[in-house]
């Protein structure tokens, strides 16, 4: 939409951005809120000035009353504009982490002062879709690691479009962007058997197709016959997973790549693959303590995080 305001551009933006809000939930306070007349406001203001001159000269009281009435409406509308933005609340931010290169979808829940006229939202490189109770922001990402949201500018011209009020909000929390995934990674490296830890007390030699039942394994995979016969909790694994004989330790050296970013991309791809195949995996990055092999969402998050911040 055409933002027909003369005010917030360049210098004005830089000046006012210093007072950006940083928290959540957030409601602009008076010092974070700026207001200026729009071009329309200036045009009508000048017209009113001339009307005032003419009507005062002839002391035509009706004309004077009309002029002052319109002037008052203009001024009251400025207060409304100010209040409209001040009553706008940003409540909650939800974002699922994404891999670098993907677009970050952010859902910002808000409480606009009313639903018939929603304040506008702008931000650098942002695609914005406003709804009654939330805003969807689409932000392209390029690098892994911490990402700071670009400052968002909330603008309102409610109710008459003669004044524009704006306020900046820049979230203080950073969002984590996972590393990019290599598109066609080589298959998982030769399995590196980890010496059995206390978690895996049984030898796996004679149970090639069965694994020790683990928390999270579906009940349908439990090998009930063996359970009945031997009292051991084991679970079956589909054909494709049979190759994996045990937990994997994915090491940076195994990628065979000199370039750090490429290596991290490959590791990321492997981790995701391993998680998909339910092969327990661990991670070892150069110069950092290794993460013991495991499976599950928490573990995956932990590994991806380690890679993102490496």
């Amino acid at each position, binding site marked *: *939409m*055409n933002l*027909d305001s003369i005010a917030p551009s360049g210098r004005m933006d830089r000046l006012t951005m210093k007072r950006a809000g940083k928290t959540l939930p957030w409601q602009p306070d008076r010092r974070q809120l700026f207001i200026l007349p729009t*071009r*329309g406001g200036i*045009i*009508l203001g000048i*017209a*009113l000035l001339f*009307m005032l*001159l*003419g*009507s*005062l*000269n*002839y*002391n*035509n*009281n*009706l*004309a*004077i*009353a*009309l002029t*002052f*009435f*319109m*002037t*008052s*409406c203009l*001024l*009251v*509308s400025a207060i*409304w504009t100010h209040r409209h933005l001040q009553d706008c609340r940003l409540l909650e931010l939800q974002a699922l982490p994404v891999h670098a290169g993907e677009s970050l979808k952010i859902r910002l829940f808000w409480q606009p002062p009313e639903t*018939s*006229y929603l304040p506008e939202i702008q931000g650098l490189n942002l695609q914005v879709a406003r709804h009654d109770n939330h805003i969807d922001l689409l932000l392209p990402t390029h690098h892994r690691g911490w990402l700071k949201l670009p400052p968002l500018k909330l603008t309102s*011209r*409610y*109710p*008459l*479009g*003669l004044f524009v009020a704006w306020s900046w909000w820049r979230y203080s929390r950073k969002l984590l962007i996972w590393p990019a995934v290599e598109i066609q990674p080589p298959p998982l490296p030769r399995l590196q058997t980890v010496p059995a830890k206390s978690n895996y007390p049984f030898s796996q030699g004679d149970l090639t197709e069965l694994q020790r039942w683990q928390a999270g394994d579906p009940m349908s995979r439990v090998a009930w016959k063996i359970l009945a016969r031997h009292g051991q909790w084991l679970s079956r694994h589909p054909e494709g997973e049979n190759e994996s004989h045990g937990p994997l330790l994915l090491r940076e050296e195994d990628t065979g790549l000199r370039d750090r970013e490429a290596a991290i991309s490959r590791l990321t791809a492997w981790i995701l693959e391993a998680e998909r195949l339910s092969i327990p995996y661990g991670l070892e990055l150069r110069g950092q303590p290794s993460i013991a092999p495991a499976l599950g969402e928490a573990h995956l998050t932990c590994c991806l995080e380690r890679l993102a911040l490496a």
Partner: protein
Amino acid sequence: MKNPWRNHPAYSLLLALNILALLPQTFWLDPLTLLLLLLLWSWGLAWKTGYLPLPNPWSKVVLTLIVAAAVLGQQAVLLGLRGGSALLAVMLLMKSLEIRTERDFYSAMVGLFFMQLSLLFHNDSWWMGLYVLFLALGMLALLWLLTQNKARDRLPDCLRHASPILRLALQALPLTVALFLLFPRLAQPLWGLPLDSTQGKTGLSDKLSPGDLIELFLDDTPVFRASRFQPAMPPLDQLYWRAMVLWHFDGRAWKRGWLPAQARQKPAKDDTLRYLLVNEAYAGNWLVSLDWPVDGDYQAQLTLDGQWISRQQWQPAGEHQLISARTDRQESAHPLALSWGLQLPPAGNPQTRSWARQQLKKHGSPAAFLRFVLNHFNRENFYYSLTPQPLGENTVDDFLFRTRIGYCEHYASALAFTMRAAGIPARVVTGYLGGEYNPLGQYIVVRKSDAHAWTEVWLKGQGWVRVDPTAAVAPERVQTAIRDQQAVHDQGMMTVDIWLKQQLDWLAYRWNRWFLQYNYDLQRSMLHNLGQWPRHLSLWMLALLGLLPLGWWLYHWQKRDRLLQQWHQLQRQLKRVVPEAPVQQGPEALARWARLHLQGGDELARWIQHWLQLRYGPAGSPPLPPLPPIRRCDKPPSSHA
């Protein structure tokens, strides 16, 4: 290229506002201009409905020029109010034909603003005020529609949801009133250009030729109202409202002149008549007063021949306290008056001249001659009619000896000429006669139709004597209206239309008195009466602006969280008495602490409990008692069970 505004409700509203702003102009614009304006407007409508494209830029320029030329050609004076508003209308309508961006709407709105202003300059009655207020609300709605940007919706649906506009307008009212009353007014106009020089608003002009007044007789517009006569209101047929004295006759028209200013004398107290005159605005430097004016608060000079001469060519609506002499006409024989009073054109009307000389000789004294002429008017077949026959080259000869049909100005002119021809100084006076009594407001309303002309004749020993030849011809002219009113009054019956008329006029009278005439002087006296205000209004305004933030603060103070304030009060007191108090803790923790560490801590704990009850408990708890005194424990706390 598709113009997005075609189906936008804002454009529909703009068209509606345009036609609404044009509508009242039918009262004063000529038919051709109106037709052209209407055509321009329908072009906009045709574009909206899809019948016509918008004019391209070149044809727009040509069209503007043609229409503007045609419209202005219809107007007598280019820069008058009528010409100006016609031109404004053309520009507004042309602007509405080139809507491309939001900015074009703003420009059109500026045009609408000035159209409204021109409506008010034409007519400042209360109903026009209401009409323009309606238009102004429409403009707010237009701005609202532009901002809401609901391009799809239909106009009625949009307007139904524009009710916040009314709320906004209501909130703007107090500020409007404050600005209206307090914004400094101009003591003197910055420029004196009369708004409309072609047609004085009251129609009385400083020139009188046969047939001039006829337009006025049909016009019921009020000119002024008078009330508060002291000691008593004279009979209506004695109310000669004096406006101008016409001294100079050129054979056809009488022209105005005035003598030097007179020193205001105090007439004998029992001879004066005091009254209040509330006038509408009009163009001209003359002011009305009851014959014979003695004193008053007009900002004008009072001349020797009883005229008020203002320095301005435009008289705003106003309220004035005036004094007139009832009988005593103290006018000295100024030499200029005697020479002007005998002035005649070198030739023309030979028949009248010789007749006058003959009759004067026959009757001897000027007074007898005057009596004879008046009798002549009465006895011979002179008729009073508002539709006289046209007069030829020698207007007076034609009237006296041929047509013998006319109204006040014919008679006044003929009498003055006859007197002058006989060597007796005479002059024509124009003004108003009588008026209509309004029992509601107990005032007299004088309308344009009450315009009148009469003669004054210089008689030795008596001075200037008012002679109304019309009364000699047709006393009923002077008395009909009065009799009608008398009849109504006597029979105690009043038809609905008279009643309604009086009601409306009374409303207009209040409007004039309380609204239209508010000006620099009234503002000053009001502010003065209000007390010891600073002398400079601008300072006063600044003080007001300073008060606005205070009001804002007060508003917020009113709305602030009372309970929270009380909690802060507790925190402050605790901190003062017991600096180590854990004031940052929650209320319950603080209450527990108070029980152990403060003397009378139980009472404080109960207070806190009560506070919590009010803040978080179900509604209906008793109000909070005052904060109990906070005292430190003198001795170490006894073990608490």
